[in-house]
Every structure is written in structure tokens, then in C-alpha cells.
């Protein structure tokens, strides 16, 4: 009997199919998908737990382990590949209650630790390091919480800057702290109060407000396309830094 297997079927035979468990329910998916695309492959229309699909927005925080390995792992669904016997559940939202603040009130007095005023509970951190182990960005979360306790805003800024605010750290903190919000307050405080808007920016803004550039822009706006093209083609290009 002739081999009637089509090219497509032959190709399909080569794909390794994996078993995954979506909130406990088993599906078969081809190897190579991310958790996010695997869910879609299984037929889920995602509404929550999906944002930029590129590892920048923190919408798709996911907890998983394996049928044979109970250790809980953490990742972003859009950035984590599915593996055989993965058991998956998503944490699209975590109820962390932020304290009220006005940015103006965050301005620290000499020697004052505003973060401690705003988040007095941070001193209850006992260093279990679950937050760090949870972070899908591999940030040193527990370290920046210690920096926050000491009032070292610069270090909190440096170490927390790549935080996507997925909230997984807060979900795992036994003391109910919310490291991602604490770090955000520290960074806003730094940006608004510990650094200054540079003079070159202030000067240019004033120059524009006073209308000092208006007549020249008006000329450009009235110039015909040939003249604009000429000026564009002959403009001097500053070398890259």
C-alpha cells in the first residue's frame, strides 16, 4: 500500500507535544511556545494577565511547578517557555493597598527617612528573601527593602529601576509588604526631590515661553517644500556620542 502520509502530517509527527496543566486541567501543546501562547493554543481568550506581550508591563505574573516537583517557580507568561508536566496558574492582580501621599509631602527633611514614615511596616522584614526569589526580573528585592529601611533612596532607585510592578513579590511576602510600591515611592521621591531639573532645560523652556523662537519657526512654516528640503539636506549633523 502506498504511503499516503501528507507532507503536513509528516511535519506534524516531528513536533514534540508537551503535557501542561492550566489551573490543573491537562492540555497538549507543541514544544517551544511561551506560557502565554500555549494558553492561546489551548483555546483560551485571554482578557486579564496579558499586556505588552514582551516582558515590559508585568501583567502576566505566573506561578508554576511540575507534577513531579513541588517547588514553586515564578515567571512572566510571555517570557517563559512551557516545559513538560508544567502546572500553571496566573496572578493577574494582587490587592496591595497603597498608603496615601502627595508627591510634595514626600520631600524629605534633613536626615529624615520618608519611606519609613510612609511604609512603617518595612522594619518588620525578617530577611526570608522570598521576594528576591520571586522576582521575574531577577532584582535584589530584599536588598532594596533593607536600603529603604536605612533611607538610602539612591540605592533603592538603582536596584529597583527595572521593576515591572507585576506584584509577585507582594504576593509572597509573609509580612504583607509591597516591595514594588515601596520602590516606586522611592524612585518618585528621588526624581522629584533629590535631583534637579537641569538649567539647560529650564532656560530653553523660558526661551520658548517668551516667544523668542516664534519668528524663525514661522518662517519655516511658510517656506515652500523646496526650501525646506534644502535646509533639511544641508543641516549639520552632530556626531553620535
Amino acid at each position, binding site marked *: 500500500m502506498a504511503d499516503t502520509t501528507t507532507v*503536513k502530517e509528516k*511535519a506534524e509527527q*516531528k*513536533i514534540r507535544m508537551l503535557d501542561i496543566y492550566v489551573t490543573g486541567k491537562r492540555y497538549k501543546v*507543541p*514544544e*517551544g511556545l*511561551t506560557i502565554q501562547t500555549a494558553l*492561546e*493554543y489551548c*483555546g483560551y*481568550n*485571554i*482578557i*486579564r494577565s*496579558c*499586556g*505588552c*506581550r*514582551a*516582558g*515590559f*508591563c508585568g501583567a502576566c505574573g505566573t506561578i508554576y511547578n511540575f507534577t513531579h516537583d513541588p517547588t514553586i517557580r515564578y515567571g512572566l507568561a510571555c*517570557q*517563559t517557555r512551557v516545559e513538560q508536566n508544567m502546572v500553571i496558574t496566573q496572578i493577574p492582580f494582587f490587592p496591595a493597598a*497603597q498608603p*496615601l501621599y502627595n*508627591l510634595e509631602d514626600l520631600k524629605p527633611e534633613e536626615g529624615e527617612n520618608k519611606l519609613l514614615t510612609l511604609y512603617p511596616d518595612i522594619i518588620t522584614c525578617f530577611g526570608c528573601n522570598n521576594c528576591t526569589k520571586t522576582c521575574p*526580573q531577577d532584582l535584589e528585592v530584599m536588598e532594596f527593602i533593607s536600603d529603604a529601611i536605612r533611607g538610602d533612596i539612591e540605592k533603592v*532607585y538603582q536596584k529597583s*529601576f*527595572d521593576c*515591572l510592578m507585576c506584584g509577585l513579590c507582594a504576593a509572597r511576602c509573609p509580612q504583607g509588604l509591597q516591595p514594588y510600591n515601596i520602590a*516606586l515611592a522611592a*524612585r*518618585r*521621591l528621588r*526624581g*522629584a526631590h533629590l*535631583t534637579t*531639573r*537641569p*538649567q*539647560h*532645560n*529650564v532656560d*530653553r*523652556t523660558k526661551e*520658548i515661553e517668551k516667544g523668542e*523662537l516664534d519668528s524663525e*519657526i514661522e518662517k*519655516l*512654516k511658510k517656506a515652500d517644500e523646496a526650501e*525646506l*528640503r534644502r535646509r*533639511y539636506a544641508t*543641516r549639520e549633523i*552632530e556626531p*553620535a*556620542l
Partner: protein
Amino acid sequence: MPYPAYMEESIHKVEATRPRRLEETFSRIPEAEREGLVNEFHPDYKKEYLRELKIGPNKGSPAPDEIADLLEGNSRINPDEVNLDDVDYDVDVLVIGCGGAGGAAALLAEENGARVLLVTKLRLGDANTIGAQAGTQAADRPNDSPILHYLDVMGGGHFTNDPDLVETLVKDAPDAIGWLESLGVNWDKEPDGSYHELSGGGTCRRRMHSCRDYTGLEEMRVIRDEIRQRHMHGRTLDFVEFQPAIELILDDKGQVAGAMLMNLETGEMTIVRAKAVVIATGGMGRIHIQGFPTTNHYGATADGLVLAYRVGCPLIHIDTMQYHPTGAAFPVQILGLLITEKVRTLSAQVINRDGDQFVHPLEARDTEASAIIRECKQRGKGITTPTGEVGVWLDSPMIDIIRGEGTIVRELPAMVRQFARFDIDITKEPMLVYPTLHYQNGGIMIKADASTPVPGLFAAGECEGGVHGRNRLIGNSTLDLFVFGRRAGKSAAKWAREVKLGKLTLDHVRKWQHEIKEAGLESRLVSPMLLPNYARHEKPVPGFHPLGEATAYTPFGDATSRWI
């Protein structure tokens, strides 16, 4: 997933030419040749993917098929079943969408005395803003000037931009940067406290303000926090998540008077009466024009264009999209992912399979993208991946060679992390790239105060058009958000103080459905689209389409070809 052996062979050629390329400056494409290149290779110029709109304010002008399908779509509501007297929210200003532009508009409208409702389809801040990496332009260095910025914007846009909008963009820019800093955005700075600014494609000065390569994330998380804090303080700023607008409401004088919302999770309808509406719904990458992968977030489905079009608002430059020159072409899990232009501004070169440069790394985006497409499709000098994608090398290790070890890790932490997740170390090996659908150059027609031709309707951010002409430059999109977002908020608040609303009506929807019928378009999709439907259903139960029909594009590819 490290590179397979045959790709490594090409990488060896790239490594071998590095000493030579250190000395080499590839010349920029002369203006005359540039237009020819773009005409021949840019996806915008493929006429077979454009069609003439049959109804609405842009009737007779061309639009890409995918956008035309949505613009000519059926309404999600039946006006006869809606009781407009049963109003759920009664506010001064309704802002639809919460990326950078919507967020800025909501803050400014509130500051200007309005009672504001901000509604968003996903979470606050789920928008293209958050994925913007490279930076925000503003001509604020002493050797720079808004005049030069103006020239760059016009040249980049092929002189098709609206001069009033460009003037506004470049003049508001330095203050927008300062405003963000006052809210707590941490711009990268030099040791002397001045802004650390980089060049970008098509810019004649260094004027890109950045926050590592997480610029949009930093901008967005600060704005989102400010919105939440103001709301918690009981100020007149409320927000609702997972509740997109599906139709605008007019009054009997033809003024915009609110919107119908849909709770995405429960299907419940909400009626908002508002004296002014700001559309800030962003772009359309998730409709996958010409089947291109995209850098855009999940909700980028052109909803705002549909809403505005149905109340008679014209669109401008809607036939032109931006294909970012460097989307990831390998590994397949991150196909189409944005590789920030900052990689090239930091001096990575673009290299073909033989290890040679074929284009200056900092051409304007349409030019750079066209040159990459030409190298792959016409000259056959691209590298084909095991799954059939084609691309060229972006030689990132050159950055550390030129600027010193550690530069890549310091300046591009997001990129390093993205590729490390797939076992590629971009400090040691190049990235394979190909153009990816990135940005909607055109959109809703606005004036400098962000008002549209429809009274009471304002628009800001990626959903509006005219600012960038037919091609946007790096760092001008995030700038656009804060320049026109702030203006829209202020203008909408002012309009709301003065306007007298008449009786609410959905007659325009009845009229629309009638026009669709007349034009024989009834069988078209329902729009706005809201979310792409990527769910794979082999044997669905009839009638089970929570989000409508599946989109043709699938993010997991064709399992029979892509996953072997």
C-alpha cells in the same frame, strides 16, 4: 536557544569584519535615492494591500485592508435597545484609554477643574507607552534648537506633516520633559546634572532623553501612580479598568456627549454622559497589517479610529504604518519583539550574512527598514532561520568594543535580559533582526489644541495623525503623548466649562448601519475589535466566540511549519 551551527558560521564572518568596521563609516543614502528605495521596498507602497473606503468621512481614500475592515465594521450595539436616560456616569471629561497620552490628559483635565472619568480596556498603563524603550526627544541642549527639531520632524515625515502640529510638538517638548521630572520620572543624567542625551535615526542633534532602556515604563508607572493617588485623595479623577468604549454618544446638536462602555469580563453595558471626550486609544499593531508581527501591546486594535470615524471625524495618513527596522527575527518565541533603536544609537551596526555593512545604522526608520528588506528580499544577503524567518545581524557587541566593556549591560538592561531568557548573550553575539509593525503614523485629524473637527471630541497620542506625517522619528512618539495628551486634557476641560449639551442620541449609529446596508457591507466584522482573538479553536461549539471571529494571524505560528 543558542544559534544553530549554520547561523554561528555567519556570526564568525561578522566577528571577522569588526576590526575593519571599527574604521569604516557607511555613508548615508542621498535624499534622491532614499525615496526610490522606500517606494520599492517599504510595505506601505504595496498597492495590492490598500483599498478605497466606501463609506464615512474618508470615503474614496485608500486604507490598508485590515483597517478598512474595521472602519467599515458594524456597530456592537443596537440603538433601539439602549435607554440613554439611564446614565451610569455623568462627568465633564471622559478620557478613553490610559497610556501616556490618556494618563496625561486625565491629569491635566482634573487640574483644570474638570470631573474626569478615565476608562481603559485593560489595566491602567497597558499601552504601547510601557514598551517604549529608547527615549523622548526634546531640543534642550545649548547646541540644539526647536528649529532643528522641527526640520528633523518634517524631513523624517517626508514633508507631509501638519506644520502647526510640528511647531507645537517641538515647542512643548522641553517643558514636557521637565513636567515628567516634576512628577518623579528619573531621567538619565550626566555627572554634572545635565540630561544624558543620545542621537537617534534622522535626528541632527543628540536630544533623546532616556531612562535606561525602560523609558516608557518609567514614564507610565509614574503617571499611573499619580492617577491612583489623586483618585485615592478624593480628587475629581475616577478610573475604570477592563471597560473599553464601544461607541460614542452625540447630542441633538451634533456634539460629542459621552460613550457606551462594555465591561470586558461580564459583558455589561455602561452609559457615560460627558461634556467632552478625549480619545487616547493608541495604535493598531495587533491587527497585523500584511501579516507582519508587531511590537505592540495586546490591546492595540485601532478602536479609537473606529469610534471617531463613526461620528464623522476624518482620519489623516491612515495608509501609512511604521515598520520598526529592528524587530527580533530569532528566536521565534520573541518574533517581532522591539529591539530598541537605542542599540544603533549606541553604535551597533547593521550587517548582512557576509559580515558587511549595507546601510548607515541611523537612517530614518522607513529608510532603514526598506534597506533591510532590500538586503534580504532582493539581494539575498539575509540569514534564514530554522523556522523560515529571514533577517540581518544587529552587531551589538560593537557597542562594548567602541564604548567600553559594561556599556551594554548599563544602557540596555531590558535587551540583555530579553535575550538571556533565550540563552543569547547580546554582549558577545549579535541579534538577528527584520522590520516589524510598530506604529500608526497617521490617525484622527487634530489641531494644535488636540481638538478634532467634531465638536467636543479631542484626541491625543498614537491614535491621532498629522504630527509625524508619513514617518515618525524615534523619541517623538513618547513626546507626542505628553505634548498632545496634556493639551487634550486642558482643552477638554475648557470645552466642558463652556458647552451646553442637548439631548443624547445614537442616531448616528442608526445612520451608520443604514449606510453600511446601502454600500452592501453588512457582512463585515463587528468593530471596534477590542482584542485580537488568538485563541486556537479546532472544533468550537457553534456560537462560542467570546471576542468575535479569530484573527487570521496567530502568535504561536503555524504549528506544522514553525515548531519543527
